[in-house]
């Protein structure tokens, strides 16, 4: 652990505190909120991809579970929005656990295939079950409320999301330099060696997968509550790919890389919006070029270049 492990966190916290003063209008505040939401999801996904070395190609499915839980449970069953968030997280975690246990007993990249299947199935279910989910057009989300006080609008959500981001970064830093985190990194480095020192490989991989699924679900609920509306696009294959791209571009295994990746790739579609059609091409080109020339991702490559080391 470096002497000042939280240095980057303090910087980010400072930026988050000052940002609302600098941003010109609510469009940019909205963008900042979306960046932060993605950053939290990517932090969780990074633990899975960067540390445990496994790929999930269906993570948007978990986001969808959280989002639609926040939409459907209060609307159809009258549940309190906070309870719906918890329910979504539990459901996502349970699904991840059920899926992961048999998959992780296998060698190789079977998780990629399994999550691919799961993500697509989730998307199709959401599109089909219109009575519960509003179908392809989506449905409205009842806002988070405590008594008569409703949490709506970008101001309160900015602070909620900013706090969540700081907490997530803090927790991630702590986890990485702990026995649990070390075991994860050892898993990635040499599975055989970690087995031999007593790491229960399957259990660790499952824990990480479940954790990243729950992160995603909670942030899916947050997105739904903030925007006030959900559509199936939230849980589609392209969104899953976007998330993996954020992890990879920022740097697998790098916390600040995750944040950077999320920031850059949330802003990119906005920048490309004028180039209808080219968005896909540019995205794909970035993915390819980054992986060919900077396979470690932005932050680790730059850190090595400037001699700092993470």
């Amino acid at each position, binding site marked *: 652990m470096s002497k000042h492990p939280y240095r980057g966190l303090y910087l980010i916290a400072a930026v988050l505190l000052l940002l609302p003063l600098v941003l010109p209008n609510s469009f940019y505040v909205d963008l900042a909120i979306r960046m932060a939401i993605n950053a939290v999801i990517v932090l969780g996904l990074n633990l899975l991809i960067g540390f445990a070395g496994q790929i999930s190609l269906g993570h948007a499915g978990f986001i969808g579970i959280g989002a639609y839980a926040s939409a459907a449970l209060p609307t159809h069953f009258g549940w309190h929005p906070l309870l719906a968030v918890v329910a979504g997280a539990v459901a996502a975690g349970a699904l991840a656990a059920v899926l992961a246990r048999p998959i992780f007993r296998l060698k190789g990249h*079977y998780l990629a295939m399994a999550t691919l*299947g799961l993500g697509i199935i989730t998307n199709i279910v959401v599109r089909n079950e219109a009575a519960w989910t509003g179908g392809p057009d989506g449905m409205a989300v009842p806002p988070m409320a405590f008594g008569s006080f409703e949490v709506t609008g970008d101001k309160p959500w900015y602070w909620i999301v900013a706090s969540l981001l700081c907490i997530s970064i803090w927790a991630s830093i702590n986890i990485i330099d702990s026995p649990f985190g070390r075991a994860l990194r050892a898993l990635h480095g040499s599975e055989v060696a970690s087995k031999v020192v007593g790491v229960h490989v399957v259990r660790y991989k499952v824990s990480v997968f479940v954790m990243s699924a729950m992160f995603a679900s909670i942030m899916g609920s947050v997105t739904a509550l903030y925007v006030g509306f959900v559509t199936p696009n939230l849980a589609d294959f392209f969104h899953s790919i976007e998330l993996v791209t954020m992890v990879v571009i920022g740097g697998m295994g790098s916390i600040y890389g995750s944040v950077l990746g999320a920031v850059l790739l949330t802003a990119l579609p906005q920048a490309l919006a004028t180039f209808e059609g080219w968005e896909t091409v540019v995205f794909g080109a970035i993915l390819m070029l980054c992986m060919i020339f900077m*396979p470690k991702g932005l932050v680790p490559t730059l850190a090595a270049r400037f001699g700092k080391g993470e």
Partner: protein
Amino acid sequence: MLAQFLQSLFSGITVGSTYALAALGFTLIYNSSHVINFAQGEFIMLGGMLAVYFTNSGLGLPLSLVLAIVLPAIVGLVMEKVAIEPVKGAEPVTLIIITIGASLVLRGLVQIWLGKGTFSLPAFSGEQPINVLGATLMPQSLWVLGVTAIVVLCLWYFFARTLMGKAMLATSFNRVAAELVGINTDGVLFLSFAMSAALGALGGILVTPITLTSYDAGIMLGLKGFVGAVLGGLGNGLGAVVGGLLVGVLEAMGAGYISSSYKDAMPFVLILLILFFRPSGLFGGKATDRV
């Protein structure tokens, strides 16, 4: 009763043949490089879209079809040289993401060039349906099945009887050993991308008169072909063909007997079942690692 069963069976084998060709493409590339090529679906889409483009430009069906197979093959070669060869020893995650990136580039370029519309090709020998025991069979289906069968036979001959084919097999068993006996494994990889793209494109062309094509037709076709390859045992050629056909049939049966709105979900439920109960697929073997 029988009619409905046969109907589902026919449509299942027809689209299953496209999956089978896609699955073969996945297998070829996986065998020579252990890369799962997520751009395979885009080769299928390119075949169909290019065929449409060339026929609409007045080139006549035969020439259009030839171009629609050759050009994707060239695209495959370019992809291999530009995106795969430079990163040969990289981690699997990296390679998977590169192929995903390539698929986005291909899909985006086609979207820009040819738009978001849906297109069709005229059926090769007319649209008069054939009546088989109460079920209808489109003549195009016979084309699909027939051409696929011929292609599979040719491939079998290629791998079993020709030197080049055996060299490709050798590379898939043990790359280093193959290099040591003088096989140009880079050339094998090169060729496998070209063949895989051509196979995919062919499948796309054959099935366009029935299922139509569009810039995003490749995603689902490719993914389902992938399921077929895994079902048959990733790396096993015969398994790929059987797997692809099975996926098509099971999908059609599911749509016909269970629910048609969940048609697209069937192959993915299938892959989850495979991974839970028989991850090595129908024909795959168990492997042990030497520590």
